[in-house]
């Protein structure tokens, strides 16, 4: 009985002591201090994020500018092969300035102008295939001939010549096959 009383007394004592163990109150000013530190941390966080944002923006702009430069340089440096050829041809076709000919402008200016016109024409031409070209000498002669010759003669000229008499006779009599006749014609020619 005495032991039980003693046990109970100890229990009560311990309960009372433990209830006081963590019953401390925060000192005045702690709340202000904690709130101030939270606000400061939030501001610092905001500034840090803003700083990071700026760095991201700068990085993104740099990447875009670099990409644009790479694209432009690759297109500018590697000109179109056709264009290159045309430019070369235009340079070659530059009319040399005649000696003693004082035209409306300086010879160099004219040659540059001519080259530019050639390049421009070539650029237009490359859209059409086959590319139209100026008439050759043979074509010009043919046109001249057609223009100055009567129509009947032209028609007569356009028909092929009849084969020689001996070959025609052989064909008619059936002595040669068609292959042989062709061969004989070729040998005659």
């Amino acid at each position, binding site marked *: 009985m005495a032991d039980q009383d003693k046990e109970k007394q100890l229990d009560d004592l*311990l309960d009372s002591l433990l209830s006081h163990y*963590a019953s*401390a109150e925060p000192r005045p000013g702690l709340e202000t201090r904690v*709130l101030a530190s*939270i606000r400061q941390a939030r501001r610092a966080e905001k500034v840090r994020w803003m700083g990071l944002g700026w760095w991201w923006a700068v990085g993104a702009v740099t990447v875009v500018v670099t990409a644009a430069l790479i694209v432009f340089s690759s297109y500018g440096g590697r000109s179109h092969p056709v264009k290159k050829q045309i430019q070369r041809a235009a340079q070659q076709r530059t009319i040399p300035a005649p000696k003693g000919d004082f035209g409306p402008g300086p010879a160099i200016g004219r040659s540059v102008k001519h080259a530019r016109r050639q390049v421009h024409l070539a650029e237009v031409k490359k859209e059409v295939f086959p590319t139209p070209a100026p008439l050759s000498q043979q074509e010009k002669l043919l046109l001249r001939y057609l223009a100055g010759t009567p129509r009947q003669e032209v028609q007569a000229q356009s028909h092929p010549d009849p084969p020689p008499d001996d070959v025609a006779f052989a064909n008619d009599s059936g002595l040669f096959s068609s292959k042989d006749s062709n061969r004989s014609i070729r040998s005659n020619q």
Partner: protein
Amino acid sequence: MAEQAILGDAALTSLKTSDAATRGQEVEILASQHMRMVFRICWSILRNHHDAEDAVQECFLRVLKFQDRIHEVRNPKTWLARIAWTTALDKRSRKPLDERSSAKENLLEQDSLESLPDPALPLEQLVAGRELQAILERLIGTLPDELREPLELSAVQELNSTEIAEIMKIPAESVRTRLFRARQLLKTKLAVLLEVQKHG
């Protein structure tokens, strides 16, 4: 007190549902409403006003840091209490070892025994005496960590054994067992001290 607890719970719930823009303000509200509980948890572990205040501040800064995870929290109150508890434990572990062990070494020194009140005094007077409180603190300090930690948390009035179990991430039954063992040890030691004081 109960009203404050309800307000605190409301703040925790609103913190859970608020968006990122307003969470900073919600943390401030939470700090002002749960300051006492957090302070008591820190105090029960650190037993020093300065250290407890530093731990409270650090605790709420941690809350601010992990505010994005608040929507994953099932019980915001124990979440906050756990942050406070771990912060205080970290702070205590950072303290120099000699500073921590000095309390244990001086526990049963003759000076301490001489300062004990007369056990024949009524309970109220015994408890009111600062000497017995100091002895209890030292006795708790001698307990092993697994018994001391739930006992320190149980001393905080705002927490029950289920919440302590959630904070410590152990079963509630284990908490109750450990509390019982801790109390038995304390009673034994206390009885010995009082007996020594009584007989001379």
